[in-house]
Structures are given as C-alpha cells and as structure tokens.
C-alpha cells in the first residue's frame, strides 16, 4: 500500500486519533480495546469506542507506572499502588508512607513498589515481603522467571529474592542507577544511570558492561520482541545494543536508527515485528524497521512537548502515545 508523504517520510498521521489527556502522560498502554493513559494529575484516562472516561486514581499525581499485557500498575504521591485490568475496578495492591517512586509487574500476578528506601513485593497469592535498600530505590524490575526483583539504587543493583531469608545478591557499580530492566531470557540486568550511560551485568558471573557515549541522560529502554536487542533513548537516534552473544554487547557497535535533529525521549519495541517506535523531544514519533532502518512517520513534531509515553497493544496494531504537556493519541497501523 502507499502512504502519503509528510516531512519527507511516508506518514501515518492521517491514522492518528487524538486524545485530550490534559496532563503529563506518565504511561500509555491498552487494556482490552481501550487505550489507557496514566496522568500526572492523578487520573487514568480510558479512551475507547464509546468515548473517553477519566477514572480518579491517585489523590495528587501518578508518579510512575508499569505495564504488562492486560495490566497497568500505577504509583502515586498518595502512597498507593493501583492495579488496572480491562473491565475491572482499580484495585489497591500496595501502600507505603510517602511517594511511590517505582512500581513493577512480575510473573503470576506479582507486583512490587517502593518509597525511598522501602521496597515491597506482593506475590500473586497476596504474600507481602519488604526490604530496606541501602539507598533510595529508583527502579524496580522482576526477573522473567522465578520470584526475584532487581532494585536499582546508588552504587548498583540489589537482586532481592522476596521469599528467601538471605541477603540480596549485590551487583555493584559506582554511581546512581535509575531505571532497571532484565533481559527477557534473564541473562542480563541493565540500568540507566545518572551519568549519560547504561550499565549492564551478566547475572551468572557479574561481568560488567558499560554502554556510554550518549549526549544525554537515558530514561527509556526496551527489549525487541525476539529479546536480542536493547533499544535506548538519550541520543539523536535510538541506540540499539546487541545482546544475542554470550557476553552481550561487549566489543560490538550498537545500531543507530531514526537519526533526527532532536533527542529520542522514549522507545517502545513492537511486540511481534522487528520494529521500534521512537518518541522524540520535539514531539515527533517514528516507526523504524530494524533490518534496514526504514522509517515511517507516526506523528509529526507538534505542540505538546517531548514524548513521555509510548505503548503498543498486544498484537502491535495500535500505538498509544502521550506527551509532557498532555497531548495524546492512538496511531492505527495499516493492516497487512
């Protein structure tokens, strides 16, 4: 099929449905058929076929969110963690004294949340465990298998096994670690840092991987559907590190895709195809194919500020997005 050309790219911008979010979009995803936006004003906006509905969620604001197929968990400055599922009322899954700084969704209905140094994990049966990190937890991520939580903090990552009594396994590296992610096969843990760099560890032996050279702070990471590549923001292109080898990206050059005169702020890998959605600081959104770097414009650089949220639906036919100043929408991909 042919697409109209806009700003030099084949464009999908006539397939965008705009949504008036009206506040900082912390996360964008899909629950059932509805596009869902977690917002800085404390509400969660559902946009479906019968219009938009706004669910008041947090008294204050949504500060952080995690998504998994069919699930959205939000953390707020009211000290609550809420879980949203399609067709169900939001459920309070966690509480803490103070702001919720990070949340994570684990296997079998597990959730984790943190407030400063206090980290909480609740398994699918409701068993609650707590852990005090050596410094404030900034990022949380469950391992893909087992019941293990990575806690990013100052000077490294703690791998906490909530059901075990022993001390967490420590992955050390000087500096402040912010967001954290496990490779889909569980072999690697990667953090974004306060410095303009990523740091990775091979879980088996703690071998270090330093991924640097970014002009800015990296605040968004995502693994491709096949788990072989880690896409990252923080440069005037998506920087995509190869992780298929035994020692990850060591000694290998990353791919640079979607080069534009604006910083990439968010990345979201397509759930099935080797395609990555890139959201830029100027509001532009591109879809980039890994194999040949082919680019499609999903949203031109419009008012609304930097892209702060991107999320695919389960089959990758729609992409929800949101920006810092509360612009939002859904891009429907052409079929076939």
């Amino acid at each position, binding site marked *: 099929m042919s697409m109209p050309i806009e700003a030099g790219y084949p464009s999908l911008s006539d397939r965008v449905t705009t949504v008036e979010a009206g506040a900082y979009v912390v996360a964008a995803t899909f629950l059932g058929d509805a596009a869902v936006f977690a917002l800085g004003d404390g509400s969660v906006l559902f946009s479906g076929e019968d219009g938009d509905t706004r669910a008041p969620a947090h008294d204050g604001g949504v500060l952080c969110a995690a998504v998994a197929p069919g699930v959205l968990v939000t953390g707020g400055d009211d000290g609550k963690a809420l879980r949203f599922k399609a067709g169900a009322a939001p459920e309070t899954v966690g509480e803490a004294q103070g702001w919720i700084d990070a949340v994570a969704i684990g296997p079998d209905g597990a959730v984790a949340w943190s407030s400063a140094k206090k980290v909480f994990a609740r398994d699918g049966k409701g068993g609650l465990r707590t852990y005090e990190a050596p*410094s404030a937890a900034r990022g949380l991520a469950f391992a893909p298998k087992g019941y293990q939580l990575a806690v990013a903090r100052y000077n490294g990552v703690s791998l906490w096994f909530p059901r075990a009594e022993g001390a967490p396994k420590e992955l050390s590296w000087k*500096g402040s670690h912010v967001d954290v992610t496990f490779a889909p096969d569980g072999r690697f843990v990667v953090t974004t840092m306060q410095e303009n760099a990523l740091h990775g560890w091979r879980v088996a032996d703690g071998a270090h991987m330093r991924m640097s050279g970014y002009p800015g702070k990296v605040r968004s990471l995502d693994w491709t559907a096949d788990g072989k590549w880690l896409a990252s923001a923080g440069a005037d292109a998506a920087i995509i590190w190869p992780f298929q080898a035994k020692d990850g990206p060591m000694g290998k050059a990353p791919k640079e895709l979607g080069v534009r005169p604006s910083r990439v702020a968010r990345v979201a890998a397509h759930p099935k195809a080797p395609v990555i959605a890139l959201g830029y600081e100027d509001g532009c959104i591109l879809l980039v194919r890994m194999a040949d770097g082919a680019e499609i414009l999903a949203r031109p650089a419009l008012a609304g500020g930097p892209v702060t949220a991107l999320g695919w639906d389960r089959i990758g036919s729609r992409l929800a997005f949101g920006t810092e100043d509360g612009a939002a929408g859904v891009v429907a991909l052409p079929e076939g």
Partner: protein
Amino acid sequence: MSSASDKTPVTVLTGYLGAGKTTLLNRILSEPHGKKYAVIVNEFGEIGIDNDLVVGADEEVFEMNNGCICCTVRGDLIRILEGLMKRKGKFDAIIVETTGLADPAPVAQTFFIDEEVGRKARLDAVVTVADAKWLTDRLKDAPEAKSQIAFADVILLNKTDLVSGEELEEVEARIRGINPYARIIRTVKSAVALDEVLDKGAFDLDRILSIEPAFLEADDHDHHHHGHDHGHDHHHHEHGPDCGCGHDHHHDHGHEKHDHGAHAHGGLKHYHDETMQSVALEIPGEVDPNKFMPWVNALAQSDGQNFLRWKGILAFKGEDRRFVFQGVHMILDGDLQREWKADEARRSKLVFIGKELDEAKLRREFEACAA
C-alpha cells in the same frame, strides 16, 4: 530551549540548627501571597502547616563521574523534582529546606548537573537564616555554617532582638568578611517581606554589578598568602574520564583559631576570614567571548574546586544581550539574557567566593579577555 522564565524558580533555604529556618518556612506557607509552593523538607514534623505539596527528603548526596567529589548531587532531590514536574501547574515555585548540617553545594549543583532538572527548574536563590547571637561562634566551630554563609544570595540575620547594636555590627562584619555579595536582611522571628526572599534570581545577579570593588578590598593585599601550611587532606579518588579534578575540596582547614584582624572601610567594620575569601573583578567594557569562554571553562577545571560560588554579568562584543552565568565549584551555567538597556553602561563583572583565591592571577587572566 526553554528560557529562564519558563522554569520553575527554586529557593534553597539553609541555616544552622535553631537559626529560625522553620519559622521562615511556616511564614512562607501561611501568609496570604496568592502563590502555591511545593516544599521539600527534611523534618516533616516541624511543619505545622497543612500544605498538600510538602515532600519529605532524605539528603542523599551522590557522587557523579565515578567518585569525583566536586560533582556531587542530591539524588533524592532529583527524584522528588522529577515527580513534581509531572504535576506542572499545581504550584508556582519550589522551596528546598536543607538540614542545618547540610553542605549547600550538592543542592545547588543538582540544578546545573542534572539535565532534566535544569530544563524545568532554576535555582532562584540560596537563602541562609543566621542566628545573630550564635553565628560568630558557629563560624569558628562549624564548617557547615560558614559554607552556608558563603553560598548565600540572601542572608536573614535573625534574632536581632537578642543582641546589642554593637554585637549586630560585629556579626554582620563577620558575614561580610566571608560573603560581601549577599543581601543581609535583619529580622526578628524571621519576619521578612516575602518578596525580599522569594523569586529574587535576576535581582541578586544584578546586585553584583552594584558592588563597589573598593568595598571588598582590604588595605593589605597579602591576606591570600597565610605563610603557613594548610595541611590539606588529599584523599585519593577514582576519577572518571570526564572530570579533571584531583582534590577533596570539602575539607576544612582547621585553623579558625587565629585572631582575625578587623579594620574599618568607610565606617564599616571589615574582617578577613582565614579560610573564605571573595574577589570582584571588573572590565569597564566588553569582553571577547572567544577568549572568555575557553578561559572560564579551563578555570572551572583548574581552580573550580576552590570556588564555592562564582557569578558574572558580561558584555560580549557584538552581542546585544547580557551574558549571565553562575557557577558552583566546577559546574558552570550561563546564558544570554535580556538586552542591555540604552542607559546602561556595557561593562563586565565577575565575582568569586572561595578558598585560596589568587586575585592577581584571576585579574590578569580576566583582563586578557577584554575585547
């Protein structure tokens, strides 16, 4: 790029224990001024005000660049400010209260080092509350108290009702000996018109233009050379490739016992502080940005560890706007701001507050940047 006016102003409130910081904070939160503040505090319990944007902080000082100590930031502040920025429009300004024992440098550096914080917020002023009765003693025994005075843009000299007029002049002279650029406001029970303290940024930088260099200068110019060994504590740190500093700059020299000489300038008592000095430099005209920028950047690397704060307003050749910058240690932040007014003399000025300042060298090098 967002201009200074789009950024949320942040006031940092410091002061040694018991100086009256909490009283000032409560005043800011309770007086009817029509503004909404987000307040980052350390002791939740002390705040008696029901403000829905009071956030507890835990003063986590983080080293950046693999352990370089002059590149410290407040990790908790980055986390909290990131959260606050998602609630844009809910508040007009931010106040950060620090504990009495806090070093103000990591707080200030956070606004310059962290890209996201710097894009959304600007350090408006460091306001230090000082106890008129006890400050002189604290300056002798508490290095934090001296840093808080040296860092300040505005100093509330509080509890003036507890001292005599003579004592007040004495303590004010001590403050001036450390920081001649800060505006000193004498108060009782931290009672001050809030517009004297909040949203002052532009004013306080402009203030450096009105400081007469003569006021700062002493009769004897060799007070920079103490003729005794300072015995610095040079720890060894691992350094990342991005940072050229090689010292532990947060040591104190530990020789506050010396008698400080006082002498009069235009009727004002004037002290030289043994460990903290200030230098003001002026070129009565323009500077060449192609000389000035490389110089200040190199200076930040070579001497930044000794500069607690430095500021400048500069007339660049061929530029209608004023270049305004401020620095904390090795971190510099500057941009072109408003145009020079028609009736305003185009001149260039730098001020430094720090340790072991080599005034002659700074003057010589700055003057070499003249256009």
